C-alpha cells in the first residue's frame, strides 16, 4: 500500500500551472518543505524549508507541522501535533492544497542508495527522487516500546521478538561494518558473538559501494582513487595492492609489474600515485569475507531504531525484508537484537540531485535525458555511441572526471559527440595550507586522494585531532572540498577536447531549464559583468555533484539524534542548520551520548563527517575507525578482544597469508 499526494497552487490554474503528484511508498516519515532535501518539495516563499512531515501506519496517514512559520492546515484548521489526514480532507501548506489517496503499489521507484536494489538495469526514466526509502515510522514498529529512552528488558522479552543476544552488533552491511568486524574477528572475537545487520539483499560488503562505482562509470578493470595500502581485506596494510599486482604480473611474465612498485616508491612527488583496480578490490573483499565468516554473521534487515536497555546494553529493532523472511507475519519480519557493543556505519543516505534538474524531471517524467551520475545511466552512453549528440555535465570532481573519460571513450566510436561542462565558477589556483598550495588544472583542484595524504595518519591527523571544533571546520574546508585525482590521462582528455573543439567549459548559475524540440536548454543567469543570455543546448544532462552527506536523512540516525540529544559536528559554511554535519564522536569514534554503563556505541564513515578525523569516507579511514574502536574495546576488557601486541599481530598476519580463519 502506498499513498499518492497531489498538490496544486491555489489560484495558479489561471497561469496554466498544472498540479503535481507524487507516490510515496513506505511508512515515512516523508518530509515536506521548500528545501530540496525534502521528499516533497513545495517551492514557495510561504513554505518553510522544513515545513511538515507525513507518516503512514497501515491506512492511517498522519501529518505534523515541523515548526513552520505559516503553519499546516488540515481541513482548514491549523494543527499543532500529529493529525490524522484522511483522503477526504485537504491539507493547506502556504498557497498549496494537498490531496491524498491510497494506491495499490508505487509505480515509480525511487533510487535509494541505502536500500537493497537489484535495479542496475532499471530504465533511467523515472521519478526524480534520489532519496533513501524511508524507514518505517516508529508508530508501526517498534511501537511504544521505543518511546522510552531506556527500554526495560522485561518488556522487550515480553514481545517474544528477540532474535538474539550478542556482544557485538554492526548496524549497516557495508564496508564500514566489514572493517569493524574484520578487526573484531582478528582480535579474537568468534563469529558466533557478532552479528551484522544489512539492508541489501546482496550480502557482499561492497554491494552498495560497487553499485555506485559501476553507475558512475568505473568498470572492473578501471583504477579507483585509492592507495596501495588501503586494503580493506587486510588490517595490516601489507602486502598492499601494488605488490600483489606486481607479483601477479611477473608470474604471468609481464615485466610491467615492476611499474606498480616503482610508482609506490616515487609517489606522489616523482610519479603519479599508484591506484588499485576495482576488480582486484572486489576480489580481495570476497576472499577476506569468506575467511572471517562474514555471511554467517550477516542478517538481512532494515534497522528502524536503537535504544538503551535497562541492563547496560542496547536493543536494535530491525525489519526483515519480505524477500528474506520465512513468512510474512510481523512476528517474523519485525525483530529485536540485543548487544552490549554496537557500531553504526550506515553510509551516505542518498546521492545529490540538483534542484533544477529535479524540477525538470518532475515536469518531464517521460524524459530520460536528465540523469544522475550515481544512478544507472549506461543508456546515455550507448545512445551517444549510436547517434551522437551533446552532453552537459554539471559539477566538477571525481565523478565528473569519470563521466568525461566515459564520453571520451564513446567518442572513439562516434566522433559526433560534444561535451559542455557547467561549473559554478572558475578555479585557476588551488587552496593554500601551511607552506604548500594544492595543484589546480583544467578548472579543478587536484590531489591524489580526497584528502591530503597525511590526514590519514601523519601530521595533519594530529593537527585535526588537537583542533577546536571551529578550527576543525576551517581546516576540513581547507583540505577537502571538491577535487579530482591528479591523473595525467584525465587532464589530457580535457586538453585534447579543448584543442579539438568538442569540450567546452562554462561558468555560472542556472536561471532556467526548458525543453525545446527534444533538446534541453539550460539558460545561465546573467551577471553584472555579462548580461547577455547564454543558452546551453544539450541532448543529455549528467548531474555529477556527488553524494549527500546529510546524515539526518537516514531516519535511524535522525531518531537517535533526537532521542538522545546527540551532539553534531559543524562544517564550515553559512547558516547554523546547513553547517550541521556528522554525529560527534571522540577520537576512538565512540558516540559519547550513547554510552549506557558498560555498553558503548561507535560510528564509522560519513556518519562521523567533520569530526576529529578527516578521511572517514575512505577504506583506510574505515580501517582506522575500526582499529580505534576495537582498541577501545580492548581497553574496556570486552570479551575475547585481544590487546593485539606485536606477537599476536604477527601470528594473525601469518594466518591471513595462509587463508586460515582467525
Amino acid at each position, binding site marked *: 500500500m502506498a499513498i499518492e499526494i497531489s498538490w496544486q497552487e491555489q489560484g495558479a490554474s489561471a497561469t496554466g500551472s498544472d498540479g503535481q503528484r507524487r507516490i510515496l511508498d513506505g511508512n515515512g516519515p516523508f518530509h515536506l518543505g521548500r528545501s530540496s532535501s525534502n521528499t516533497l518539495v513545495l517551492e514557495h516563499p510561504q513554505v518553510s524549508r522544513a515545513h511538515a512531515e507525513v507518516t503512514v501506519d497501515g491506512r492511517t496517514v498522519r501529518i505534523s507541522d515541523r515548526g513552520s512559520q505559516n503553519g499546516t492546515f488540515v481541513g482548514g484548521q491549523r494543527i499543532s501535533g500529529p493529525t490524522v489526514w484522511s483522503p477526504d480532507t485537504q491539507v493547506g501548506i502556504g498557497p498549496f492544497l494537498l490531496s491524498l489517496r491510497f494506491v495499490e503499489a508505487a509505480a515509480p521507484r525511487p533510487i535509494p542508495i541505502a536500500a537493497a536494489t537489484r535495479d542496475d538495469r532499471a530504465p533511467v526514466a523515472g521519478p526524480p527522487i534520489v532519496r533513501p526509502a524511508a524507514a518505517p515510522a516508529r508508530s508501526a514498529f517498534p511501537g511504544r516500546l521505543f518511546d522510552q529512552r531506556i527500554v526495560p528488558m522485561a518488556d522487550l522479552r515480553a514481545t517474544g521478538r528477540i532474535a538474539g543476544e550478542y556482544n557485538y552488533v554492526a548496524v549497516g552491511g557495508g564496508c564500514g561494518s566489514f572493517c569493524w568486524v574484520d578487526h573484531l574477528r582478528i582480535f579474537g572475537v568468534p563469529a558466533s558473538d557478532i552479528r551484522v545487520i544489512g539492508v541489501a539483499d546482496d550480502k557482499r560488503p561492497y554491494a552498495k559501494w560497487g553499485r555506485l562505482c559501476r553507475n558512475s562509470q568505473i568498470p572492473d578493470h578501471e583504477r579507483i582513487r585509492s592507495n596501495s*595500502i588501503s586494503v580493506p581485506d587486510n*588490517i*595490516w*596494510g*601489507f*602486502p*598492499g595492492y601494488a*605488490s600483489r599486482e606486481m607479483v601477479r604480473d611477473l608470474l604471468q611474465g609481464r615485466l610491467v609489474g615492476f611499474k606498480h612498485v616503482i610508482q*609506490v*616508491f*616515487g*609517489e*606522489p*612527488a*616523482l610519479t603519479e600515485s599508484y591506484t588499485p583496480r576495482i576488480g582486484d578490490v572486489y576480489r580481495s573483499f570476497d576472499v577476506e569475507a569468506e575467511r572471517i565468516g562474514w555471511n554467517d554473521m550477516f542478517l538481512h534487515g532494515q534497522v528502524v531504531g536503537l535504544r538503551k536497555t535497562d541492563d547496560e546494553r542496547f536493543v536494535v529493532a530491525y525489519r526483515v525484508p519480505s524477500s528474506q523472511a520465512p513468512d510474512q507475519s510481523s512476528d517474523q519480519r519485525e525483530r529485536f537484537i540485543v548487544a552490549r557493543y554496537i557500531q553504526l556505519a550506515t553510509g551516505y543516505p542518498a546521492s545529490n540531485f540538483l534542484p533544477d534538474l529535479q524540477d525538470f524531471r518532475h515536469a518531464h517524467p517521460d524524459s530520460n535525458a536528465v540523469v544522475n551520475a550515481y544512478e544507472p545511466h549506461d543508456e546515455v552512453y550507448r545512445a551517444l555511441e549510436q547517434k551522437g549528440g551533446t552532453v552537459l555535465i554539471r559539477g566538477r570532481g571525481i565523478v565528473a572526471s569519470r563521466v568525461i573519460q566515459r564520453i571520451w571513450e564513446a567518442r572513439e566510436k562516434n566522433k559526433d559527440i560534444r561535451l559542455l561542462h557547467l561549473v559554478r565558477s572558475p578555479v585557476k589556483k*588551488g587552496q593554500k*595550507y*601551511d*607552506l*604548500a*598550495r*594544492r*595543484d589546480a588544472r583544467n578548472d579543478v583542484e587536484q*590531489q*591524489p586522494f580526497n584528502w*591530503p*595524504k*597525511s590526514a*590519514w*595518519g*601523519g*601530521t*595533519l*591527523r*594530529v593537527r585535526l585531532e588537537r583542533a577546536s571544533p571551529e578550527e576543525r571546520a576551517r581546516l576540513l574546508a581547507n583540505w577537502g572540498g571538491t577535487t579530482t585525482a591528479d591523473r595525467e590521462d584525465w587532464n589530457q582528455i580535457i586538453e585534447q577536447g579543448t584543442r579539438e573543439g568538442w569540450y567546452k567549459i562554462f561558468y555560472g548559475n542556472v536561471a532556467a531549464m526548458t525543453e525545446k524540440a527534444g533538446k534541453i536548454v539550460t539558460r545561465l543567469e546573467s551577471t553584472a559583468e555579462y548580461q547577455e543570455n547564454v543558452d546551453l543546448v544539450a541532448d543529455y544532462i549528467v548531474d555529477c555533484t556527488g553524494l549527500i552527506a546529510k546524515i539526518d536523512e537516514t531516519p535511524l540516525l535522525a531518531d537517535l539524534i533526537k532521542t538522545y540529544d546527540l551532539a553534531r559536528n559543524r562544517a564550515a559554511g553559512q547558516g547554523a542548520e546547513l553547517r550541521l554535519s556528522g554525529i560527534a564522536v*571522540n*577520537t*576512538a569514534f565512540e558516540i559519547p551520548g550513547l554510552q549506557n554503563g558498560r555498553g558503548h556505541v561507535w560510528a564509522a564513515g560519513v556518519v562521523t563527517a567533520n569530526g576529529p578525523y578527516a578521511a572517514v569516507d575512505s577504506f583506510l579511514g574505515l580501517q*582506522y575507525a575500526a*582499529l*580505534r574502536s576495537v*582498541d*577501545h574495546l580492548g*581497553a574496556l576488557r570486552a570479551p575475547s578482544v585481544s590487546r*593485539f601486541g*606485536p*606477537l599476536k*599481530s*604477527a601470528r594473525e*598476519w601469518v594466518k591471513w597469508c595462509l587463508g586460515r580463519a582467525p
Partner: protein
Amino acid sequence: MIPTLLGRWHTRLLLYVFIGLPVTFLYAMYLSAWQWPPPFTQSVFYYPFLFITLILVLGLVLDVLYIQIQRFNWDQDWPFAYQAFFMVLEFFIVFYLMDYGILDYVYPLFPDGYIPFSTAAWHFGFVFVLSFLAILGIFQIFLVRWRFKGGELGRHPIR
C-alpha cells in the same frame, strides 16, 4: 610515508635497535674474523658500532629539518624516494665527517681516523636494505597501529 616528528624518532630508534645493532654486530664479527668472545676493545670491532650510532644521532637531528621540508608538500608526506635519498645522504655525511677527521675535533672517537669506504658502504648497504624493507611493510606485520600514528609506537590514547 606520512611521518610525524615523534614518529620519525620512534621509527629511527626502532630501526637502530632491531636492525642497525644486530646487523652491525654480525658485520663487526665478520670484520674481526668471528672471534669469540668478540674483541670488544679493538677498533675493528667497535668502529662499526660507532659508525652506525653516529648515523642515528645525525638522523635524529636532521629529522627536525625533514619535518619542515614536509610542509612544502601539499600532502605533508614523505615519499619513499625521499626516504631513500636522505638515508644515503646521511651515510655520506657521517662517512666524510669521519674520513676527514672532523669528528676528532668534537671528540676523538677514531684515533686512527680511517675506515675504508667499501667497508663502511657494505655495512651501510646491509642496514639500508633491511631498514627499507621494514618500513615498506615488515613493521606493519607486528605493529598494526604504526602506519596510522605517523611512525610512532604504541596504542592511540583513549580519550
